[in-house]
């Protein structure tokens, strides 16, 4: 009988002993931290991509819990997830506008000229330090795909024309590609800003079009055709300023001789068919 009682007795003893020690020390030794941080962190996607502007998900969670940022700052989470976090923290989700990465260049293999051949480290950053990489237009895309490599979410793919295509649907607007491009051609912007200038060349007239068929020659027609103040010329390039002007309309693009201002809906470079141009990456 003694035997039989011994096991439960020991277990209860151990349980009580440590239960009490731990409970007491929990009170005495407790170091306070916001328990919601961990909870919030669990709700975040955990990709640590940095799209929110923080070094990772946990720091973002800390700021969330402290009320310094809104849940919608995480562009990776789906709207439902954002709602969930907002609900959990009892805060407002914040306005969320779909942002995507856009390429300020349309001069692929079939439009822009090479003036010299580049050989070496197979990357745009590498090429850009060797006399600019040999592309005639020294502001244009080098087409070696650093942005493709940098994209954490695998939504950038080089097309047959040697230009990166962003899958706008899945782009989460993290700035990886922006950071990677040595020519600073990618920019993060709201998806619904449809009027977009796909050129980065500050040259005007023939100087521009000699280097690239689709370069903006700074003729200014688009400025004239758009709502007043919506577009202005700066450094030989049109700048669309949604804050300053009225409604953007596709009409502004109609008279552009070089097709460098576009009315974009969804992905860039949709209508082009490059199969006929021979395709392939420009170098090796």
């Amino acid at each position, binding site marked *: 009988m003694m035997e039989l009682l011994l096991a439960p007795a020991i277990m209860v003893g151990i349980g009580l002993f440590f239960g009490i020690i731990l409970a007491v020390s929990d009170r005495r030794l407790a170091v306070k931290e916001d328990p919601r941080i961990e909870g919030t962190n669990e709700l975040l996607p955990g990709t640590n991509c940095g799209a929110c502007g923080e070094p990772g998900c946990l720091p973002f969670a800390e700021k969330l819990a402290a009320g310094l940022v809104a849940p919608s700052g995480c562009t990776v989470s789906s709207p439902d997830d954002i709602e969930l976090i907002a609900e959990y923290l009892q805060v407002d989700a914040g306005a969320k506008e779909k942002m995507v990465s856009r390429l300020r260049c349309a001069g692929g293999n079939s439009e822009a000229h090479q*003036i*010299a*051949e*580049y*050989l*070496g*480290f197979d990357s745009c950053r*590498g*090429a850009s*330090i*060797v*006399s600019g*990489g*040999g592309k005639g237009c020294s502001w244009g895309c080098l087409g070696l795909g650093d942005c493709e490599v940098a994209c954490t979410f695998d939504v950038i793919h080089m097309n047959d024309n040697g230009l990166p295509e962003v899958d706008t649907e899945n782009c989460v607007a993290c700035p990886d590609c922006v950071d990677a491009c040595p020519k600073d051609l990618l920019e993060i912007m709201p998806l619904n800003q449809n009027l977009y200038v796909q050129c980065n060349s500050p040259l005007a007239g023939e100087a521009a079009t000699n280097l690239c068929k689709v370069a903006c020659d700074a003729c200014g027609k688009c400025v004239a055709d758009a709502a007043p103040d919506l577009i202005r010329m700066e450094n030989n390039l049109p700048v669309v300023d949604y804050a300053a002007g009225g409604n953007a309309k596709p009409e502004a693009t109609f008279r552009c001789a070089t097709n460098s201002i576009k009315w974009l809906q969804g992905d860039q470079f949709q209508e082009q068919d490059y199969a006929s141009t021979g395709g392939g990456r420009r170098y090796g």
Partner: protein
Amino acid sequence: MTEKDPNLLLQHAPLLQQGMTTPQAMRDVLYALLPVTLAAVWFFGLGAILVLLASIAGAALTEWTFASQEKGGESLLDGTALLTGLLLGLTLPPGLPLWMAFLGGAVSIGLGKVIWGGLGHNLFNPALVGRAFLLATFPIAMTTWAPLTGADGFFTVQPSNLALPFMQSGTDAVTSATPLGLMKFEQQSTPLVNLIIGNTAGSLGETSGLLLIAGGIYLWMRRDLDWRIPVSILITVMIFSAILDMVDSTRFPDPLFSVFSGGMLLGSIYMATDPVTSPITPKGAWIFGVGVGLLVVLIRAFGGLPEGMMYSILLMNAATPLIDRYTQPRVFGRGKALT
């Protein structure tokens, strides 16, 4: 003057190159091993050629199958797969069934190289990964040492060589013991002359000390190997075996025996020096060598196995990233007060 501009090339400076290329270095090692290979055939007969070919075939085939697909078979051309196969073959016992040698070659390249991303990316010596695998997989066959060529002379092929794939080699093999085995288990020494010439039992390529050293000198003259590694290994081994020998000369062999027996020379000249898996810094090379030396003496003197060269190199391969990390040279103008 051509009126038309040449289509200029943009290639980053410097445009001058020293001249040595990686495939050339690999070929040099193959050349350096040629005499050793011939000696293996001389001592062990036709069977040696078969074992070497089997392991080279295993290595080359694996390289070709896996590593070359995207690069269009080019990676075979740099010669490293052949070298790995040959080096593995040289560490195998003469009587090993051919299918095992083939498997070893395949494992060397498969587990030792391809999986890591191919040439230059592996962190363990591929040939030794293959050998360690074989030793752990077929310990009996791998420690059964066929004697030198017998009556058949050149045409000697051990019956065990011809075992069917996946089948045992049979137990009737004539065996002999390696100098190290004799020393360890029977406290019996082998004359130094035999060790230097190479007419002793052992792995195909490890027996002839003289030719191994000659090849090493060739590689050193061609600047293909880091002399610090073999030198530090051999010195460490000499010092520590001398100490042990003084303590108990029946149990522990003398320094020269230690250096000329077993895989010591093959390992320290050709395998510990594998550039890919040894430290890149000069100081690291010294540490690496001393580490290999200490481990070899430890395993040979106190371990369960008579030979420890392979394990020592593999263990130091594992430590190489750490060694490299902590032996970075002092950058010019840094870490020193203005003098």
